[in-house]
């Protein structure tokens, strides 16, 4: 298992809302709280901007895990965006589960702009879980050849 992981590093796509989680990631950075380089962040204005298509696309393209981070419930910069995200994602995740993508490969987390430590902790935990699960092969057939 370890051998395989060394050869091919896991790939994690993190969608972070601009106001809370992206700022939380910045704080993790300025506080030098490390997490694996496997995590690549995409900035979106709000967690509600994350279209389920983006997540499907990521898995199709070979992502091993996708995490969506937003403001805590009640703290959304746009008042209600994270509630939409939460509902959409819970539907999407059960569909992905049905398609054979393990539940642990997808995650929604609330990280505020002041929670650099939480951001780092969440990413470390998520990355180690993805590492354990290994490569995402379920959508392999659908994967576009790069």
């Amino acid at each position, binding site marked *: 298992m370890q051998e395989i992981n060394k050869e091919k590093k896991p*790939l994690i*796509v993190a969608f972070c809302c*601009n*106001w*809370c989680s*992206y*700022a939380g*990631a*910045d704080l*993790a*950075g*300025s506080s*030098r*709280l*490390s*997490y694996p*380089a496997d995590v*690549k*962040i*995409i*900035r*979106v*204005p*709000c967690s*509600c*901007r*994350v*279209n*389920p*298509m*983006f997540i499907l*696309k*990521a898995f199709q*393209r*070979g*992502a091993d895990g996708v995490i969506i981070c937003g*403001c805590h419930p*009640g*703290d*959304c*910069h*746009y*008042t*209600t*965006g994270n509630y*939409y995200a939460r509902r*959409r994602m819970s539907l999407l995740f059960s569909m992905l589960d049905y398609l054979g993508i393990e539940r642990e490969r997808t995650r929604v987390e609330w990280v*505020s*702009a*002041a*929670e650099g430590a939480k951001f*780092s902790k969440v990413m470390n935990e998520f990355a180690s879980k993805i590492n354990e699960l290994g490569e995402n092969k379920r959508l392999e057939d659908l994967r576009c050849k*790069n």
Partner: protein
Amino acid sequence: MQKIGVFVCWCGSNIAATVDVKKVAEVLKAEPGVVISENYQYMCSENGQALIRNAIKEHGLTGVVVCSCSPRMHEATFRKTCESAGLNPYMVEIANIREQCSWIHKDIEEATEKAIILGRSAIAKLKLNAPLTSGESAVVKRALVIGGGIAGIQSALDIAEAGFEVDIVEQSPTIGGNMAKLDKTFPTLDCAACILTPKMVDCAQNEKIDIMTFSEIESVKGFVGNFKVQIRRKARFVDEKKCTGCGECMQKCPSKKGLNDFNMGLNTRPAIYIPFAQAIPNVAIIDPEQCLKIKNGKCGLCAMKCNVNAIDYTQKDEIIEREYGAIVVATGYKPISLENFNEYGYSSYKDVVTSLELERLMNAAGPSDGHLVRPSDHKEPKVITFIQCVGSRDTSGCGKPYCSKICCMYTAKHAMLIREKYPDTEVHVFYIDVRTPGKNYDEFFRRAVEQYGVDYIKGMVGKVYEENGKLMVQGSDLINNEQVVIPSDLVVLAAAIEPNPSVRNIATMVTASIDTNNFLTEAHAKLRPVESPTAGIFLSGVCQGPKDIPETVSQASACAAKVIGLLAKDKLKCNACVSHSDEMLCTGCSVCANVCPYGAITYVDKEFRLGGGKTEVRRVATVNDAVCQGCGACTVACPSGAMDLKGFSNKQIMAEVDAICKR
């Protein structure tokens, strides 16, 4: 054909120490569409920006990617740079290779590889960027200050001084806040009332300032420059305009057993009362829980006594709506509840008091007219023991992890004042550390020890118990390495301070971010300390973090300067990254309007040509650019894919996903 310029910043050694910046620039140069790729020590410097400007002109760049720090830091800088060279400011993308790469990774190879991927992702997105222009919206030239303590008062006075109208909304019946309750203030020992009440009067007399006490924020809508706020003016059962504050009603009121909040519940007040002599507004208020007339319809003495007919037992809450350009949050603090600290006996013994209660016991307008006596038997205490850090710097979960900052100084002040006024009194202070940074602060503390002979004991207190009528304070003395028990007459707890509980609700209403301790988060910890990340929301005083009075006043004035800067503008540039609807795809289903938190989407009937001279009228969505804040909720909700967000379009984000997943 696109011509993209890539600019990789070293940020001194911040990026260059862990990311091979030259390699990043070299690899990205090979990306299709990239015509120039440079690296430089500080891209944000004047020289770095000149490098970008020159490249735009020289190569006729159509877009710029800067691989540097977070876009939250310098996106605005680089947009301006490009704009000054004639490039649309939205043709810039930032790859965050500092906060999200060099600062968190140690392995150079790994970090360089990630930086390249982040750069590629930014290039992929940029290729789909379109030049954007932002609309303008008018600024309502009036500010709202939430909270009427010293922070709110100072902010309001400064804003009014610049000629703008300000409303202060305060939840209690008078402005003045915690400072009005204090006796003296460190390090100069001026009397708090003597320096605060003139400012309160200034507020009341300033024609630009409208004070709404006993009022709460009901809802906040809108955005920077154009907030619509509903304010609940709670029923005080006294007509504010008629009441002269003569106090006749207070004398006659037969229901005198209400706890006096202003004196921290140390004595009682009548059902109709004026909080304190210098209250602003100097208007009575009835506590409906306690008023015999309101409770069971019998009494009405105050109405009979009132010469100006100001009493109105049937008064109801009133909700008013006003518009503001800027909102200042100045909600302040309260001492924490001590229910988790039974070891200090606060709830068991009357003579264990908090420092704020001691302020009232020492204040000439307090329950004992400034004569320091024990609450239990009204006798003068001969031995007083102070316990510091009660709930501060507490990582056990019972208290607060932070330092409350003001306690060391006010404890020194209390100790000094007591030794000055009652030289026979023995004063002991248990402390963990004494923290006195600040102008003349350490000198002040040393005076307490050296000149006034206050006994400072380094160590924590284990428990307080009663024995033979004395309060036994048992603690450790770390310097002499022994256990000590001090029989005391009065024990004073320096309780930690926490943000006023109302701030939670207010933060939600104004969409300001809040940290795990319920302090409001500033836009930048060092460079934008008085602004919330939400445009148009400003932070004044302890709601942002523990502060003493001088710091609070400085911050309140800084906050006012920011508000004035905003209100001085006639127009504000709106957010350019707004939603837009593709009319050819829109079916007019209304789903987008239902999820829009701003009501920015409306529907219009539009005529479409079908060919062959035929036309069709369809209902389609249209977005009001000045109102849309660009969250993107509608883009995902839209079932026909007609809605998209400029600057964060479906295609752009898909391109980023693609670039990141390519390997």
